[in-house]
Structure formats: C-alpha cells, structure tokens
C-alpha cells in the first residue's frame, strides 16, 4: 500500500514538472538570452563604428579635443567591460554595463552636435555614410532593447507568479534585470544625427 502511494507520488511529481512552469522557464530563459545577445550585438556594432567616426571628425575639427576625448574614453570604457552571460543575472554588473553604454550614447550625440558647426565635415561623403550607419545602429539598439524588455517581462512574470515561483525558488531561477525607465529615457533618445539642410 505504501509502495503504491510512493509510486503515485513519483508519477505526480513527474507530471507536475510540466505544470509547474519548469518548461516555461527553460524556453523563456533561452528567449531572453537570445534577445540579450541581439542587444549586445548591436552595441558592439556601434562600438565598432566609433573609431572611424572619430577619425573622420578629427580630419575636419581636430581642435574639438574635449568632445573627441569624451567619445574615445566612453568607447574604451564600453570595451573594457567583460560581457558574460552571467551579466544578466547580476543586477549590479548590468547597471554598470548600462551606465557605460549610456555614456557612449551621450558622448556620441555631443560629437554629432558639435560637427553641425563644420560645413565641410557635413559635406564629407565618408562622414555622411558613417552617420547613416550610426543612425541605423542606434535604431537597431532601440528595437533590440525593446524586444529584450518584452522577453524579460514575460520571464519575470513567469518566475514571480504562483505556483511557478515555488519551482523558481527551488531551482534557483531569479528575476532578471531589465532596462530601467530613467535609463530608458536617456538612452533611447537616439542622437540627433539629422544633417540634411532643410
């Protein structure tokens, strides 16, 4: 009789694995990792554009030292952060990463604002192309970030709601950090890179 009860409980346990959110965690966890990679991918793409952009601007506006150094500093800071998958599970490191990317964003927008004052720079085809690429990349970052926020929302809802939260606690799944709102405002404002004369 006791054996029967044990067996029944074992079966119930296995069945409950599908009902307790374990599989949901698996798929949402993977999804959030994938959308996070896309965010990183696009940030990397932006970082790769910076050296060329700085060089072109230097050619026309070499005495804008302050802005140029700001961009270079921000760029190297972004490059120095070790981006590991664990970053996602560490809110502090995540915030640091965000701060560095945000700094690069504002430095870049200042650089582009300054270059408004140099008609020759604005007419340079190389600069215009870089500017179009930067614009596109900033937009891709926004899209990737929004998609990341969306997947994290789904994941966190799954982790926190009952009865899944019991499973999450037992198996060590924690809520993941998302882009905060203040952050979001500062970063999602793409640098105004509109140089077309009206």
């Amino acid at each position, binding site marked *: 009789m006791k054996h029967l009860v044990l067996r029944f409980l074992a079966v119930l346990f296995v069945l409950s694995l599908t009902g307790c959110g374990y599989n949901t965690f698996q798929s949402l966890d993977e999804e959030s990792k994938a959308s996070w990679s896309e965010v990183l991918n696009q940030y990397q793409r932006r970082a790769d554009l910076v050296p060329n952009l700085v060089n072109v601007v230097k050619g026309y506006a070499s005495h804008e030292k302050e802005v140029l150094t700001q961009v270079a500093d921000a760029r190297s800071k972004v490059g120095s952060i070790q981006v590991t998958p664990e970053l996602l599970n560490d809110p502090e490191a995540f915030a640091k990463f965000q701060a560095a990317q945000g700094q690069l964003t504002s430095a870049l927008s200042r650089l582009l604002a300054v270059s408004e004052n140099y008609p020759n720079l604005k007419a340079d085809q190389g600069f215009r*192309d870089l500017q179009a690429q930067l614009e*596109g990349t900033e*937009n*891709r970052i*926004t*899209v990737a970030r929004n998609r990341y926020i969306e997947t994290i929302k789904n994941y966190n809802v799954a982790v926190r709601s009952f009865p899944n939260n019991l499973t999450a606690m037992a198996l060590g799944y924690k809520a993941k950090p998302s882009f905060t709102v203040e952050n979001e405002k500062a970063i999602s404002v793409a640098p105004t890179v509109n140089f077309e004369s009206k």
Partner: protein
Amino acid sequence: MMLLASFNVHAELAPIPVLQHRVTDLTQTLSAQQQSALEQKIAAFEQEKGSQIAVLIIPTTQPEAIEQYSIRVAEAWKIGREKEDDGVLLLVAKDDHKMRIEVGYGLEGAIPDLIAKRVITEIMAPSFKQGDFYGGISKAVDALIGLIAGEQLPAPVNQNGQNSFGDLLPLLLVGGLILGSILRAVFGDFFGGILNGGVVAALAWFFGVALLIALILGIVAFILTLIGPSGLGQLGSGSYSGGGGHSDSWSGGGGDFGGGGASGDW
C-alpha cells in the same frame, strides 16, 4: 485607473492599417493608375525573386517617431518570406515630411543603412520636394529592386506553373477517389481500379512528379478503388474540402525586421 491610463496612451498611437495590397495610400496622394502601376511592378518582381516590398503612405506617425511607427508596422505586416526575412517597407509620412525605408533582416546585406539613406536623400527627397510623390516612390522602388536583384536568395515558390507535390497530393487523392467510384460503377471493381490507377499515375507524371512516384500513386489509387471508397471517400473529401482559393488581397510572408534601414525628410 492604471488600466484606463495605459489604454489612453495606446489609443493615441497612430493605427496600423490592415495590409491588403502592396501599395497602401491613406492620403489619396497617388492616383488609381499610379497605384496599380506600382503594384504591378512590385508584384512582377515578387514573382521573379520572391522578395516582398510594401509601400505605405500615411498622413502622420505622431506621437511616435517614424522609426517607432515603422517597426510596429513591419512587425504587424511581416513582409518578406519567413526564414529569408527579405521584406522592405517604404513608409512615407506625408504631413510630417518624413520617410523611412525599413529593411528586413535578410536584406541588410543587399540594402545597408547607408545605401538606404542614399536612396532617400538622392532619389526620394528631390522628387518629394517638387511634389512628385509618385516619381520619387517609383524611382525608389526601382532602386530597391535593383539592389535586391543582386542578392543571392532562394527562388520563389511558384504558385501558378509547376505545382509542388504537396499541393498536388490532396487534389489527386480527392479526384482519384471520386473518379474511382465512378469508374468502378461503370467498369466494375477490377477494371475500374486499373483505369483509375492509370489516370492518377498519368496525371501525377504530367504535373512533374517523378515517374516512379507517379506509378506508386497509381497503384495506391488502384488498391483504394478496389477496396471501395465509400468510407475513405468521406474521410478524404471531408478533410481536404475548402482548400486553396487565392483572393486578391496580399499578405506578408512572415519576414522579421530588426530596425535596419534609414530615415530621412524633405
């Protein structure tokens, strides 16, 4: 309260029009002829290459920036083939004096951001400034077609000419069963079966199915006819009824977008 507030925010966003045609003009800027000319040009290209291009002209994207509205439209319409992600959305916000070319993932190589930007500043903007919207859009579509044409993409699935085997199978099954029961009534079980098998095999072969498979299909048809199709016939016609039927409306193929492309103004 919260719900109400969020609903209001949502309601203020510019609505996404229902996708029915390749060219959607909500501003009555293009004449009917111009629309159909564009439509035909894009449709011909889609037949040839498989990539999908959609043109949307709206009055304004406010309160959103054109980029935000554009990605919402792209996500809703899903232009381009699934997996290939080879769709392009050409969006014009007429009263905002802004335009955008939204490029699907699969075409980011064929139409890099800076090329999209040049199409906007060098082709569209000059025409738009003169009020020639049709000319600008038409030339931009030509340029996009030229860019995509150079890209290596899988051939489109042709819907008219050669049917794929998968499309043909239900037709053969239902047709074979109906024909089988008629032939059986006229010629008797055995000869009816042989005749039906022969017809099915010949038809399959005619439509480009390999000879061996056509023969196997014929034998299956023969056996099915011999067994008697009464029960099977119902099953077959029941599950396959109402298939096909292409209408005039057009829809996206499931392509994904990641925010690639460029925006501009005039």
